[in-house]
């Protein structure tokens, strides 16, 4: 009898069971825990062969560690109270003929980076034929077409939007302006504080910029 118990203890200590359940009486996997698992400090967990994810992008969750509770949690942008990138479309109705010079979005420049992508400019009645004022003399401004600024810029700590024809040109009437805007959360970006790369072309047409910090 004593020998048998000894044998039992010996086998138990070698942990050679094929299926172990903790908190469950019917494990279906090699080790199955029904309850919380805690790994003490300085001990590691290795997943030697967890496999590769091959499903669609919408069916997986990123895993994160809550640094306040040390809990492993899933990251779900749909329920989180912030996202990494926001996309929005601004519609400015009845903008004066000079275009949009500065619109304060109130978006905090210390937390976010804002960039204007595409834009649409319409007449304020919704029609698409936009005119720019100019003069028709031999060297009048009608001989030139102005470029434009479609840009988000920082002023007094917040992001402002502008869309203007430059060269001091103005639209012939009031306009409606749509701006597609991307808003990036700065502290989640790999690099959001890179200084602008400034390059002087010195009246040339080609150049090479230094590689940015990536």
């Amino acid at each position, binding site marked *: 009898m004593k020998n048998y118990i000894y044998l039992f203890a010996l086998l138990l200590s070698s942990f050679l069971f094929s299926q172990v359940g*903790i908190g469950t009486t019917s494990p279906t996997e090699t080790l199955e825990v029904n309850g919380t698992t805690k790994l003490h400090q300085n001990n590691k967990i290795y997943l030697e062969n967890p496999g590769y994810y091959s499903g669609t992008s919408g069916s997986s969750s990123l895993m994160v560690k809550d640094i306040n509770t040390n809990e492993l949690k899933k990251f779900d942008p749909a329920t989180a109270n912030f996202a990494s990138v926001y996309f929005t479309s601004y519609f400015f109705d009845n903008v004066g003929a000079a275009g949009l010079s500065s619109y304060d979005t109130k978006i905090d420049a210390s937390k976010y980076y804002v960039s204007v992508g595409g834009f649409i400019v319409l007449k304020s009645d919704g029609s698409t034929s936009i005119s720019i004022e100019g003069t028709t003399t031999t060297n009048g401004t009608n001989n030139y077409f102005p470029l434009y600024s479609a840009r988000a810029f920082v002023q007094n700590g917040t992001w402002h939007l502008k869309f203007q024809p430059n060269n001091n040109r103005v639209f012939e009437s009031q306009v409606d302006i749509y701006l597609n805007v991307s808003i990036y*959360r700065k502290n989640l970006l*790999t690099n959001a504080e890179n200084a602008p790369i400034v390059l002087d072309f010195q009246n040339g047409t080609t150049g090479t910029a230094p590689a940015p910090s990536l």
Partner: protein
Amino acid sequence: MKTYFLILSLFLTFTLSFSQVGIGVTNPTQMLEVDGGHIYVGDDFYIMNSIGSYSGDDTGFHIIAADPNSQSKGEPLNGELIEFYGNQELLPITIQAYEIKNVRYHKLQDLNLQIPSDKYVISLSNFEAIPSSGNLGLYRVSRNTSGFFNTFQNFTYSNFVIETSEVGSNWHVRIEAPNVSLSHNTSWTYTYKFDIIIFPKRFFKNLGSLQYNLNGNKNGAASNTPAGL
């Protein structure tokens, strides 16, 4: 003999169940608690869907990842679970602002960004053109003065191009009106400001350019979603 059969039957089913287990821990407070050593999982590792969602702010978490080149006891042992510090890697995007001064006429014909195109995909946004003093703009290509009763004057302006492209192994930018007349004033220059949004290919995929022939129609439909989406 009775005990013997009990032990035998136990090992025949190869199943054990415990309530609270400590490994290297004498008084476990959790269902499973491990200390004094590492856990190795050689096969799949499942976490039930009922695990909580993170609900804190954007500074209270670290992303967890498996290190494919980890070591243990001096030997390669893949898959050590690690957390990212500082850079969250949640948004592996770099935004780089550019300011290109004194571009001849308006012709930024080629700017080599020195961003390797095998590793990154880029997009350009936040464009601003700032003319030099006295610069009225881009000169027209032609003007039709024989309009209806000569009351209309039709001006033909060149198209204006903002383009990013892969040249050699790097991304390049081109911003110009390629066909505009340069005959007017050659001392005018532009300063161009723009942002380049840089997406690493280890997270993002470039679908390349998609070409459809609309055969003169005004509407079209792709036969499929873009390949690779």
